[in-house]
């Protein structure tokens, strides 16, 4: 009887502790989605009969496909670069003595401060030949004018560079942390079996951090699909029009605030959100990344 009462108290207290977060979850995740969905389904100029007209309108918009292609090409450059550099450098860091790698790790964290609007500012000066410390290098390629670099065919590389640079160091240090948690006995055993350091890196360490790398790729991809600040600011103030409606989120911004078509804008937003939810569910149910977290809750 007493035990039953204690369990009941624990249920109530647990709920009370969880409640503030639950309130925020409802307020800032569930309600916005419901409201946006209802706006997207309302009758409007582009959606005369109500229903899914806005979704069709967005998909048929002449700017949609180019924006989708831009974002996908950008991801095609950005994701593999991120994977190779992060995996490579964290393995290299792990192969040297921890204390020797301290200054390197600190240096890799420095670019994390250069993000969002600051990234546009800094990379403008880094890439503009008049100001750039890399100007002599650019000259070798014949790039002497700003427009040699800032032109529409280079945009995917420019944005990939900006976003890669902001996040890579952070992830290198995080993955290095994962590598550090591999038990020494395991690595020692491999060495005794005659594996050299390259073999240890590729056959033992890499498979062991595989799931962390997959998790990183999903987060990076989700964020990359949503790219907005970099193309928006570059195009709205630095080189006017250079990346107009370049990304999907820019298009939804344009629809909402310049085209006064909130219905179509929320429709686009929700379609992106559904892709994100799909990605999230794949990670949660189709990979082993959260297995430990999920089983923990069953035990208790």
């Amino acid at each position, binding site marked *: 009887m007493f035990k039953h009462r204690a369990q009941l108290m624990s249920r109530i207290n647990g709920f009370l*502790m969880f409640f503030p*977060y639950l309130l925020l979850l409802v*307020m800032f995740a569930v309600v916005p989605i419901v409201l946006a969905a209802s706006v997207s389904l309302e009758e409007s100029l582009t959606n005369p009969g109500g229903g899914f007209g806005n979704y069709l309108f967005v998909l048929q918009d002449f700017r949609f496909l180019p924006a989708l292609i831009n974002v996908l090409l950008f991801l095609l450059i950005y994701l593999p670069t991120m994977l190779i550099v992060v995996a490579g450098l964290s393995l290299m860091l792990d192969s*040297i003595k921890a204390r020797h790698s301290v200054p390197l790790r600190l240096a890799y964290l420095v670019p994390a*401060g250069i*993000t969002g609007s*600051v990234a546009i500012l800094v990379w403008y000066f880094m890439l503009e030949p008049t100001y750039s*410390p890399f100007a002599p290098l650019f000259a070798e390629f014949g790039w002497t004018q700003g427009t040699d670099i800032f032109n529409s065919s280079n945009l995917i590389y420019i944005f990939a560079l900006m976003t890669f640079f902001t996040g890579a160091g952070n992830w290198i*240090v995080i993955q290095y942390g994962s590598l550090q948690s591999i038990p020494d006995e395991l690595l020692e055993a491999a060495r005794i079996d005659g594996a050299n350091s390259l073999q240890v890196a590729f056959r033992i360490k890499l498979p062991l951090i595989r799931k962390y790398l997959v998790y990183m790729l999903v987060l990076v991809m989700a964020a990359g699909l*949503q790219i907005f600040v970099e193309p928006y600011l570059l195009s709205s103030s630095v080189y006017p029009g250079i990346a107009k409606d370049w990304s999907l989120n820019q298009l939804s911004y344009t629809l909402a605030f310049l085209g006064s078509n909130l219905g179509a804008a929320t429709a686009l937003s929700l379609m992106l959100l559904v892709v994100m939810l799909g990605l999230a569910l794949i990670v949660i149910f189709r990979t082993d990344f959260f297995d430990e977290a999920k089983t923990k809750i069953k035990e208790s």
Partner: protein
Amino acid sequence: MTLTEAKKVTVRKKKINAKALPAKTLAWVVMVAFALFSVIPMTWLVLAPSKTQVGLQEDPPMSFGTFQGYIDAWNNLMLFQDGRLVTWLWNSIWYTSIQVLVACLIAILGGYALAATRMPFRKSMLITTLVAMIVPQVAFVLPLFVEITTLGLYDTAWAIILPGTFFPFGVFLSYIYFSTTIPHDLYEAARIDGSGDWGVFFRIALPLSKGLIGMLAFFSFQVNWINFFLPYVVVNSGEVLTLPVGLGILFSSTPALNPQVGANVLPIRGPEIALAGLLIAIPILLIFLASSRLLVRGVLAGSVKS
């Protein structure tokens, strides 16, 4: 190469596989090159406000101007809308402070409830939290805009602050922390001693979670301090804006990055805009460097250990 270094190399050659040496050298070259490449842009940003606009174009890019340069750049920035930059800076500071404080408190309580109480629907709440943490915040911007206008919060500080207190990643980190780092027996022992859930939370769990609190504060600060899209969309008045959005306004209303904005007579050019950017970047940099030990110990390794 000094004599001792040469000696070390020869000693190593004897000790380890001779084939491994070129690979090791190559690894060092790559690591050092990437480190240099990592610090150049930030170093440039720190140096830029010390120079004049002419110096920025003509002096070597990585050179230092004068300390007076920083003061001049600051004074010039203050000419923009009667020192609006100070308002933005102050807004950024107090918005972020509230967000970090509230987000961390709520996340710790939520994570603890998932890990150590018998709260109902724990599993489904955990899955929901995982979903919310993987979907990037940017995906919610337009839906949030619709909600904020419906609530009548458009163009108020709360439109920026409130959504930033929702911190599912923090709940997840806290949940992992309370269910792995602190042994379950400890909670049980405290309960047998007669402490209720709240007592266990305040007397046992909270005092043991300094590392966790540091990590949560670090992540929520990072996300909120630099947030651009949501503040940009839900706020219109200059006096409610934050520094990152303000920087974007400086881009479009001064000739600093786009000489074609010529009608503007304010002396806000390269050095001034760099100083404004530095005000955003420096706090992030300092917090990153200060918590690099937390990061190195492994956000993932420590929390999602296999």
